[in-house]
């Protein structure tokens, strides 16, 4: 018997491409959430492969917190131009300037992203919204379906999720509702890095070790900057660091690292005793159910 088996990464890639094509086949107006982080960069790469030689039939949506890393914004704009894509931006700063959202005392803008995101989805009538969320990231994410129905308020109700069987994804929804789609559900952080290495995907430089002005807050190294750090009593120092995740500067921490190549990064992650979010996300440490609560509100 000539049994053929796909490699682990090929199988994950094949599954993700299948999900992208299902959405293209069943929805009118899908969009890819694109933050310029590694997961959304891998999503875009998979979408390009899924529809080659034709163009990706989706636009991109970035929720701009106003506290983004400049290197990441530069990467985002370059990617959009290189592939002839359309970029929508939902701006948190804009909501704050208009007085609709108020700056939090702790300075983090991560929870503030939900309203601009959900209003943009409604305004543009997006019916499928791809997110780079992975089930290995967090215990509430571990409960998420690949196709996750959201009501007209974008809310996630974990107790009323549709059963999801085999690879038969149900994309039916009423007007005003949309479906969040997670093609990387079954990928782990290590899978993402190994795939980036295999495919030779370019990333923003902040993922690799570099010297940076940082200060210590809540056990993490945060980048000093106009967003509101450091405060009194916090001292800035120059350290060699890199980022494991890319998000709002106010709550995304850097890790000490000398990993300058993809191979170094893969070796570092394989040996790490901390999860990606545990190491670098302040907002997930706020309570035992921080992610679940934000997701219920419509967060990605």
């Amino acid at each position, binding site marked *: *018997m*000539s*049994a*053929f*088996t*796909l*490699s*682990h990464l*090929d*199988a*994950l*890639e*094949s*599954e993700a*491409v*299948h999900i992208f*094509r*299902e959405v*293209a*086949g069943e929805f009118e107006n899908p969009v890819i959430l694109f933050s310029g982080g590694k997961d959304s960069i891998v999503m875009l790469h998979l979408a390009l*492969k*899924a*529809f*080659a*030689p*034709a163009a990706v039939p989706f636009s991109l949506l970035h929720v701009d917190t106003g506290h983004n890393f400049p290197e990441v914004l530069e990467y985002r704009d370059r990617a959009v131009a290189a592939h002839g894509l359309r970029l929508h931006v939902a701006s948190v700063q804009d909501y704050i300037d208009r007085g609709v959202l108020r700056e939090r005392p702790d300075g983090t803008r991560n929870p503030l992203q939900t309203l601009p995101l959900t209003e943009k989805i409604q305004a543009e009538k997006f019916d499928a919204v791809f997110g780079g969320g992975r*089930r*290995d990231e*967090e*215990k*509430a994410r*571990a*409960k998420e379906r690949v196709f996750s*129905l959201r009501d007209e308020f974008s809310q996630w109700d*974990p*107790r009323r*999720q*549709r*059963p*999801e*069987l*085999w*690879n*038969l994804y*149900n994309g*039916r*929804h*009423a007007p005003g509702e949309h479906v969040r789609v997670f093609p990387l559900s*079954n990928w*782990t952080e290590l899978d993402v890095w190994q795939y980036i290495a295999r495919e030779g995907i370019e990333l923003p430089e902040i993922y690799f070790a570099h010297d940076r002005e940082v200060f210590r807050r809540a056990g993490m190294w945060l980048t000093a900057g106009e967003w509101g750090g450091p405060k009194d009593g916090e001292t800035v120092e120059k350290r060699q660091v890199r980022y494991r995740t890319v998000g709002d500067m106010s709550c995304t921490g850097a890790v000490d690292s000398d990993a300058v190549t993809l191979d170094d990064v893969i070796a570092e992650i394989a040996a*790490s*005793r*901390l*999860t990606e979010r*545990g*190491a670098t996300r302040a907002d997930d440490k706020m309570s*035992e*159910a921080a992610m*679940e*609560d934000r997701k219920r509100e419509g967060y990605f």
Partner: protein
Amino acid sequence: MSTMTGTTVDATVGLRLATADTSRFATADTPRLATADTLRFATAGSVDDGKSTLVGRLLHDSKSVLADQLEAVETASRNRGKDTPDLALLTDGLRAEREQGITIDVAYRYFATPKRRFILADTPGHVQYTRNMVTGASTAELAIILVDSRSGIVEQTRRHAAVAALLRVPQVVLAVNKMDLVGYAQGVFERLVEEFAGYAAELGLPGFTPIPVSALAGDNVVERSTRMDWYAGPALLEFLENVPVAADPADAPARFPVQYVIRHGDVRHYAGQLVSGSLRVGDRVTVHPSGETSEITAIDALGTAVETAYAPQSVGVRLADQRDVSRGDMITAGGEAPVLTQDVRAAVCHLADRPLRVGDRVLLKHTTRTVKAIVKDLAGAQALSVNDLGRITLRTAEPLALDDYGVSRRTGAFLLIDPADGATLTAGMVDLAGLG
């Protein structure tokens, strides 16, 4: 809160499945994401059988829990007044689950040992969440059914075994837990195994592997226990690392549901995932339901031109003739052709709170094709309630290209969907032999 129903397992489902050709299933099945180094498995257990503790123990003792996760569990356990870390808190990810101490929905976990990668669907045991066990079992190559050594085989155990049989999970492990509470007694274990074997035979389970464990104390979960020297078999993790995973033989008939047509200039690529068998450049193929034939002129494997594609690759194919092929069509080659029919007979598990009744108009999603359908018969019953297992006959508005679920878990499976609000109503497993 879902409604509680006290439905019992439909024994006829099990008996009927027992007559199906299981040897054919074992070789020709196409599990999703079948790779030699990955095992997808699901766990099921009744309330208080210690399933979350077992999963927590498996993750913890295989060193798959990272420092910050363990720290969070230790803190949460202390806050709940416990002296030792409650490993169940590792897996119960929802607020309501932690409050009630039960698993409500499937959680997927990813871990690896030097031998293998694992994708674990941790599914609830409560009767009202049977649909979530069905969700987890649908993609699993192995199911662990957990029982409490003190309470033995209970109705939920029989239900879990029925779901595993119905969904054709290729391997079943019976984990007899809480052996520490029965003095690690061989007799207790053997009586339980014998009783379960009776049900397994009735349900048509091809076989099962019994393992005595204590999730709380860690006996036979990752390390072999020294307290049960009468047991000569492997510890649970050892078994999971070594159990063979069924691979799709390349000579199985090719099934290629068309997902999307990629147009580039004058060229049309039919994009999809090959769900079984293989396709070669030069193969004569048939397009269903039209029945037209053509020849493959090119295969694109995500950017690389290839001569042959194998399941479960996502590819694009080009055909020699300009055919009217679109999403929902199925391209096939080799071996037996699928059955083209508008009369669908199947075993089902009803998943929705609203009942399914004879005469209901529904949507049926099979591979990439969604068609209108009418419920013609429910094996004599007037309605199916949530979590009921049963048999169904449907009439569809257009013909479908079906395989028996016993031959393919992909081309033999379908969903029923409520046309009004899009809710997923029922999971169906095609039974071509049907009711005769």
